[in-house]
């Protein structure tokens, strides 16, 4: 009964989504509040039914009901409970159900907490959500139904895939989906604004929290996916420019641009048409990501699905929504009122610059990801566009962007004073130069670009600090006054500072890891010692151990430095006999933000074992940066105050005191 009730709930959700996607629009045309409010109750009911459906699927997985094909194919009664639950979204059908559940969750949140929205805007937004939801319900019910039954249920399920039994992979897809799907709200708002033909600063105010939530989750999701690949796949790499990774990076880049241009729109009523376009593009890229991962056009570690009907169906959804929204945009955008004007050197100008670089970077990733696919479709040649392409294109785009980051928050709205800002950033510049000099002296030679890149990162971090110092006038006024001003600062200002500093922190990690990463690859026998970056790693012995459903070969290393024993590391290799597969469990040892990383290879005939040891200086900063960024986003999200970008008047009657800064 649980399976069938879950199935029926999903069908009801589809029916409700269809009503939600039509009735409110008719209501908005007729200006009938009751019809418009149908959007709200159906969105909530839809959330209820999808929720029921999802809970039903989880229950089926937990009770190992193998009469459900999805459970039979992807679960096993011997799995630990946690992985039975997370296995729900470890497969295609379940993850699509999670996708629509999150979509319904966002729709429900707009319905429940959108009291401050004008009635017709809310009706339109929810109707657009209803279109998206209906398309995906149809997709699930027709091509990837998780509730199909098996007439003669087998006694045991098939899957115990050891690679997927990992906590990182359990948490990372829901995070990413919250990000992907969260941008659907921005998209719905944009399409609703186009349908209504009206857009104003208030629009940006209403859409702000949704964009921020989506961005925070996407940031964390990407960082977590990267860390998972780092420790589980055993290659020691943290970003592979894999199409699936790129698929999540593209909406992030576009979403970051959207976040910034929406600020301009909210505060200054400018860049409206561009913001709408960005909102459409961001969600389109999310859909593209879903398509790339879910259709199986890619063959990588992430690709589970291989059914062509699915691919075609998602491609249709993709064309319908992206094509439809862009057509609507072309048709209606010219009718939208243009917003306020600003000088090129101003906060708005800086944000436009930011948008230009971010969208260009996004475009390069887009080309690098889709060009090989297009080429394969057209000519049948398989090429791979790897790190060299992205390093050559993506890197140069990010350098000027990062150089500009500290300037942005310090520039005044409408008309800025670049010289004045440069003067105030002097301290940050000096810090950066000192950092360059120190790194240069310390490493003496080696990669010439690395100290410069670190200097850039320091400049970004110091710039964020300078921004805060300026706003609180920390060194100009008494400490108590500065503290009072710090408390009075909007939390979104703190958020900006943290997020920008996070970018710098991540950059330091990336530069250090790629430049001074040292490795030892060789075959070791017990009592051999490997020397790496000042550490001595002695292989004590190799032992065999029987795990719950695997055999494990454990190697024990004693790590010492200058003769002092520091710690013991035990990397292992597990072989799962039931499935005939094996996984590498790398051993990680954190020393500050740096890490030692050991992963085992194959055993040689003479009892030696292939070992790869890496020393990765400051590698943890790569993930600490995004966490800092997400924290900044959270701070900004918690700031419910209205935002005003007070413009700098053209003629200044009396020179204002230097301490006065434009408000956030």
């Amino acid at each position, binding site marked *: 009964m649980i399976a069938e009730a879950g199935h*029926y709930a999903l069908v009801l959700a589809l029916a409700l989504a269809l009503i939600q996607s039509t009735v409110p629009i008719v209501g908005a045309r007729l200006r009938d509040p009751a019809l418009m409010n149908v959007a709200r109750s159906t969105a909530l009911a839809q959330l209820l039914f999808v929720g029921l459906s999802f809970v039903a699927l989880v229950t089926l997985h937990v009770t190992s009901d193998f009469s459900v094909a999805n459970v039979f194919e992807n679960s096993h009664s011997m799995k630990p409970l946690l992985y039975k639950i997370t296995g729900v979204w470890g497969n295609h059908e379940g993850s699509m159900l999670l996708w629509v559940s999150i979509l319904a969750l966002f729709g429900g949140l707009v319905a429940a907490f959108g009291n401050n929205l004008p*009635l017709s805007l809310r009706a339109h937004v929810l109707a657009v959500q209803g279109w998206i939801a209906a398309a995906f319900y149809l997709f699930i*019910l027709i091509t990837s139904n998780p509730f199909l039954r098996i007439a003669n249920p087998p006694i045991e399920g098939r899957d115990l895939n050891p690679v997927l039994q990992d906590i990182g992979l359990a948490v990372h897809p829901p995070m990413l989906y919250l990000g992907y799907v969260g941008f659907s709200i921005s998209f719905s708002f944009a399409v609703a604004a186009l349908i209504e033909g009206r857009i104003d600063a208030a629009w940006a105010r209403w859409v702000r929290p949704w964009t921020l939530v989506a961005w925070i989750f996407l940031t964390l999701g990407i960082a977590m996916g990267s860390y998972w690949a780092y420790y589980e796949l055993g290659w020691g790499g943290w970003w592979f420019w894999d199409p699936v990774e790129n698929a999540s990076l593209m909406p992030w880049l576009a979403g970051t641009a959207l976040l910034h241009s929406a600020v301009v729109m909210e505060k200054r009523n400018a860049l409206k048409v561009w913001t709408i376009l960005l909102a459409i593009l961001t969600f389109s890229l999310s859909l593209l990501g879903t398509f790339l991962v879910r259709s199986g056009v890619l063959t990588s570690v992430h690709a589970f699905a291989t059914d062509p009907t699915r691919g075609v169906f998602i491609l249709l959804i993709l064309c319908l929504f992206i094509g439809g929204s862009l057509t609507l945009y072309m048709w209606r955008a010219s009718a939208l009122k243009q917003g306020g004007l600003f000088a090129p050197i101003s906060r708005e100008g800086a944000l436009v610059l930011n948008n230009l670089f971010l969208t260009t970077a996004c475009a390069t990733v887009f080309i690098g990801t889709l060009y090989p696919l297009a080429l394969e479709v057209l000519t049948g040649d398989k090429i791979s566009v790897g790190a060299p392409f992205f390093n050559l294109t993506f890197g140069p785009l990010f350098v000027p962007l990062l150089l500009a980051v500290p300037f942005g928050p310090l520039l005044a709205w409408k008309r800025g004073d670049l010289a004045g800002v440069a003067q105030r950033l002097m301290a940050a510049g000096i810090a950066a130069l000192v950092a360059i000099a120190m790194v240069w002296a310390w490493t003496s030679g080696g990669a010439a670009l690395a100290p410069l890149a670190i200097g850039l990162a320091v400049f970004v971090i110091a710039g964020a600090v300078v921004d805060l110092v300026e706003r609180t006038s920390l060194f100009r006024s008494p400490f108590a006054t500065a503290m009072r001003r710090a408390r009075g600062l909007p939390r979104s200002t703190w958020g900006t500072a943290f997020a920008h500093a996070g970018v710098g922190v991540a950059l330091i990690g990336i530069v250090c890891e790629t430049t001074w990463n040292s490795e030892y690859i060789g075959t070791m026998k017990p009592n051999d010692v490997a020397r790496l970056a000042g550490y001595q790693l002695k292989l004590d012995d190799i032992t065999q151990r029987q795990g719950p459903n695997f055999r494990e070969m454990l190697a024990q290393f004693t790590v010492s430095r200058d003769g002092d024993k520091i710690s013991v590391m035990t990397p292992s290799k597990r072989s799962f006999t039931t499935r005939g597969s094996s996984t590498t469990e790398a051993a990680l040892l954190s020393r500050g933000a740096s890490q030692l990383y050991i992963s085992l290879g194959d055993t040689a005939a003479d009892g030696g074992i292939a070992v790869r040891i890496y020393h990765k200086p400051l590698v943890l900063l790569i993930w600490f940066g995004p966490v800092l960024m997400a924290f900044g986003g959270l701070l900004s999200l918690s700031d419910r105050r209205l935002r*005003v970008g*007070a413009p700098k008047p053209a003629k200044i009657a009396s020179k204002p005191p230097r301490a006065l800064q434009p408000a956030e």
Partner: protein
Amino acid sequence: MALWFVFALMTAAAIFAVLWPLGRARSDAGGTEAAVYKDQLAEVGRDAAAGLIGSPEAEAARVEISRRLLAADDTERNIPVRTSPIFRRAVAVIALIGLPLMAVAFYLPLGSPRMPDFPLAERTRAPSASEPLDNLVAQVQAHLEKNPTDGRGWSVLAPVLAKLGRFDDAVTAFRNAITYNGDNAARRADLGEAMSAAAKGVITAEAKTEFERAVALDADEVKARYFLGVAAEQDGRAAEAASIWRAMLAKAPPDAPWRPLVQAALVRVGGPSLPALSDDTMASVQGMSADDRSAMVKGMVDRLATRLKQDGNDVEGWLRLVRAYMVLGDRDKAKSALTDARQAVGSDAGKLQQLNEGLKSFGLGG
């Protein structure tokens, strides 16, 4: 039935969600853009008061926001609110008829409403007679294909195969269990048993060798010794069989579960005088419950009947069987046994005479 009730409830909830806003006389008007700009104005005032922005900037901001406020007020005032009863009624009809129709139209071809849930916990508690065991066996076999040296797996699988009647597979499985899980008397005996079962109960020379090996490994291996007795019986050496079994009973603990079986076998070869039965069996029989006792007796009688079907020359056996049925109160079976007996010995006049003499005392008539 409960499922349809749940479906109906869910459908009703969905319909209600659509109808609810239609039925409400007054609904909230929602927020306005003007409200946002008014809040922004207040915010500018607060920022200016806190000294976060200077007064010229604040003034410029106020001018800009007021301009937006005026524009927003204009557009919003132009929107009259109307009610359109026809459309509301149309939506209500769609909800009441269209929604359930659509849900059913989608669900019926996709769903399997007649199928109950099969949570694993319940299924293992009450295994249905047919498929699950086969599935399990198939799985274990698949596992063993990949790991042919898993002795424990073979040991688990073999008896299950034997129980399922797949004796040839069971023989292979027992052989593998011995190879990979170690040789012992019990496994050799099981192997022999599976071999003789595969040969439809005949203790083949091969099986006999296994039983002998088992006894060599452990002289007290019960199963092997019993089957060696059976082998002797089948070879026509009834006395040897009887002596093997007597020796077993003599050594056996009084509560050994296999006692009745061996005693029945002994009865089979030992003729009407049952010296071993009187002492040992009676002792154990007295300790039994009524059910166990009658089960034991029935078992003995059945085995006798089976043997007589194969070898009908034993007049004494037939007489014992008929008497047993009379004692058990089964006149019909006694009569049919009598008919069988007449047919079996029919060619031998002397034996027929003996049979008829014996039957007189039973009062069965002709």
